[in-house]
């Protein structure tokens, strides 16, 4: 058996240059992000989903009634990243968090930064900070910060 230090090792990158077709509902959601607006979809029972959902998970009806939500919201849960790695978009300590935007009944997974771990708890108020350039992607919301 060869010693493990004699084994060949090499970095390896696998990349898929996908283009994702957004469909009629999600297109509106992403287009609005480009205008620094966060939309959700509203069901006949009055529930609002943001990020927009194409179908109501309870009633199974298709959704296309768009309403504006946020940009403030509250933390539903979070996971603190003390030492971000290369693939993280934020290089300083930050949290991945589920954020329930004002006016929405579901929560959005995003990042919270510019704060300490001790500043965050379930229910903490946060607000969206926008990217300098918009690409009509979820990263148009750069991250969330503590509400002043």
């Amino acid at each position, binding site marked *: *058996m*060869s010693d493990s230090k*004699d*084994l*060949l*090792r*090499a*970095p*390896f*990158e*696998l*990349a*898929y*240059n*996908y*283009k*994702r*077709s*957004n469909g009629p509902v999600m*297109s509106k959601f*992403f*287009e609005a992000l480009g205008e620094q607006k966060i939309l959700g979809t509203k069901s006949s029972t009055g529930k609002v989903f943001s990020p927009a959902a194409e179908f109501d998970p309870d009633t199974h009806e298709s959704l296309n009634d768009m309403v504006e939500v946020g940009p403030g919201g509250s933390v539903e849960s979070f996971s603190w990243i003390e030492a971000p790695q*290369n*693939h993280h978009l934020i290089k300083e300590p930050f949290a991945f968090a589920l954020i329930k935007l004002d006016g929405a009944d579901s929560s959005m997974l995003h990042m919270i930064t510019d704060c300490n771990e001790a500043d965050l708890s379930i229910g903490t108020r946060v607000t969206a900070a926008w990217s300098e350039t918009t*690409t*009509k*992607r979820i990263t148009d919301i750069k991250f969330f910060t503590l509400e002043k």
Partner: protein
Amino acid sequence: MSTEDTPKDYSESPINLEYFYTAGSATTRFLNQVKEGNIVGQGCPKCKAVYVPPRGSCPRCGVATDIEVPLTDKGCIESFTVVHIPIPGNPIVPPYVCAMIRLDGANISFLHLIQDVDIENIRIGMRIQAVWKPKEEWTHSLENIKWFAPIDEPDIDVATLRFQES
């Protein structure tokens, strides 16, 4: 409407996965030979099947393939596909041929490129040989072989490629 006014119905959604690949013992032995321009398969001590590239064990018998079997860089086309559609990020210009290459003395085939071939004339059983890059460019990679090209030898009868239980 200019293209800039046309709303996109898609978004760019690239995915990048960065690995650190450890070859393992069998592939390390194989690639160390490839770097020297040699193709060395590995044989099963039980059923005598020869695997190239080797993965370290025989899937038929479940034992380690610890017999080194030097092979030539000649073989035949076991199956092939003519690719007409360009694949984003692939520098090879269509039409080109991808083929499963069965080297002489091996019991499995591997995927490689066929060039210097008349596409109309390509067929299963056709004799081919590796075209190597200049020696200075050899690394631990089967890309040391630029492609395989037809040679002037009679076709192989595909029936002879079937594995004979010994």
